[in-house]
């Protein structure tokens, strides 16, 4: 569904030019579960931003479902992001003054029409991430893991084809990491959603079926793991939480 060919990205700030991507060819098939890994500064975020239409490549071709998107207008890209993609960020980026439900409904503010069942869909998305009891909490009243699960619910409320996540577990402890990964694995397995995530964490990489390694703006390796770790099993193997023991 995603086909990158010869993608380069060169940042020019003043007289200094920083090459971030030096010719990347990368395909993502529908239903892929891929981790993008590599050292800091290797261009992981950049390639994900380009795939997520948040940024434009300096050069190269990007076919989305066979359609060339590099020439689209800003508004055209915004519409594609709104209807076909979901995003999760390392630091959640929730609206601090809005409730969990309001945060989840945010994409509908910018959809062509506001669905009549928006609120119902928001509840369902929050239920899917196990937060049906936190609908009206604000981010300040939620744990980091819960915040990231709200962000995941926001990413899937529009029922997108692909979810992009930049270091989704970077700020989370082990348990929350497993919880978020379990949700993403279930979405991939049960609903066929394509998941592309960036991570530093080899353990998270082991939970992904495919691992793409970047070094200095080039793809160094692209491997498929026949038997990725199951986050639900990992979660079950953790010692019980304090509050669960009581």
């Amino acid at each position, binding site marked *: 569904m995603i086909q990158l060919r010869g993608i380069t990205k060169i940042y020019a700030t003043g007289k200094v030019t920083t090459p971030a991507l030096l010719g990347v060819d990368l395909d993502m098939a529908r239903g892929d579960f891929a981790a993008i890994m590599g050292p800091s500064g290797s261009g992981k975020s950049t390639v994900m931003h380009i795939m997520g239409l948040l940024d434009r490549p300096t050069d190269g071709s990007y076919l989305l479902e066979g359609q060339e998107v590099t020439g689209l207008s800003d508004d055209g890209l915004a519409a594609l992001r709104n209807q076909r993609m979901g995003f999760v*960020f390392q*630091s959640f980026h929730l609206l601090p*003054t*809005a409730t969990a439900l309001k945060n989840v409904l945010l*994409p509908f*503010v*910018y959809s062509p*029409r*506001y669905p009549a069942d928006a609120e119902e869909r928001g509840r369902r998305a929050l239920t899917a991430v196990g937060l049906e009891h936190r609908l009206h909490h604000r981010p300040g009243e939620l744990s980091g893991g819960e915040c990231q699960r709200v962000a995941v619910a*926001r990413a899937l409320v529009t029922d997108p084809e692909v979810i992009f996540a930049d270091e989704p577990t970077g700020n989370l402890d082990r348990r929350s990491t497993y919880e978020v990964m379990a949700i993403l694995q279930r979405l991939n397995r049960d609903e066929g959603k394509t998941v592309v995530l960036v991570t530093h964490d080899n353990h998270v990489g082991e939970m992904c079926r495919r691992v793409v390694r970047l070094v200095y703006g080039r793809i160094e390796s692209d491997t498929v793991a026949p038997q990725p770790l199951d986050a639900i099993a990992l979660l079950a193997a953790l010692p019980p939480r304090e509050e669960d023991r009581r």
Partner: protein
Amino acid sequence: MPALGGRLGRLTATAWEGVASRRMRSGLAALGLMVGVAAVVLMVAIGQGTRNQVLDQVTALGSDLVTVWAAKSAPTGARTTTSKDKVSLSPADAQALGRMQGVRHAVPGINRGQRVSAQGVTTDTTLVVAPPEIFAVEGHLPAEGQFYGEREERQAQRVVVVGPSLRQRLAGDASLVGQTIEIKKQHFLVVAELAPKGLDPNGNDLDDRLYLPLRTGLSRLLGGRRHVDYITVQGDGSYALDQLQEEIRALLRQRHRLTEPDQRDDFNIHTQLETIQTQEESSRLFSSLITGVAGISLLVAGIGIMAVMLIGVRERTPEIGVRRAVGARRRDILIHFLLEALILGLGGGLAGAALGLGLAGLVRRFSDLSYALPWSAAGVALLVSLTIAVVFGLWPARRAASLTPVEAVRDA
């Protein structure tokens, strides 16, 4: 365009949430506008009030009057000038003016400071020596008794009409009608008391006066004087006031044999029009002062909104990034922040208009100013504050809209 309409509605709701969820900051941003608008509304009301007050006073004096003063006797100097200086006007001049076309009354008169006493009290007042027409011309009504008339004038009777302030000093709340007042050891019968008129624009008490017939005054108090200080002319409305003024000048120059153009008038002509014009000038000055102060305070308020919004845009950069990531277009962000500015302007403007009108109502209640509540000024000030908010919100809003999704969302 139902889609666009729906979207605008959602953006408005979003903007409202953005303002409402930051109560402290939004309140501070709107405070400047509120104070500015309230000040403008109050100032307009007070300006209108003082203007009305002066116009009332001028109307009380008679706004259709032309007064001719004998030369060298200034209008307000009537009490102090000596008789030698002002011999130019005579009762005959008044008669001639009275026969002129377009003139209803021409009333000669003398004003002078005079010591009077009654019932053991002695005080100084302004003595107005004038024939009975003076009451009609100056628009007096009797509060008690009857004014002196033609017969009393012709027979030079010793009768007087007393003003309420003077009566108050001489007799307190008791009536003086039917009593006598002593002037220069002669007794004069009080036949009437004037209805109160208050102060003139110069602050003189129009009620601190004692009127007596012209002949009586000339023969019994002024030692057979033949000239008068002034002639008050009331037009019948067929001439404009300044035109009437020219007709009067021509007739008097002719009567006084001032035939050469280089001979100066031996009289001065004064109309209430000039008083009104002076007042109008000062109220224009006041208006431009208000406009200036209002302009500056609203400008400051606008800069306040801009500063608060710029800080907001900086702080909310990740929020803007997320909105862009989930599908907001540049113009959605622009409209969103402009709507937030508009809401601040509306809130500040409405609160200011309400506060200003409320204060104007209070001032009206507890002062002697009278004016209609300045609804239209409040409306205009509200519109101006909306405009200010949008104009000063434009830059922050454009700044928000110019952020690219990546730079807004990139984890620091």
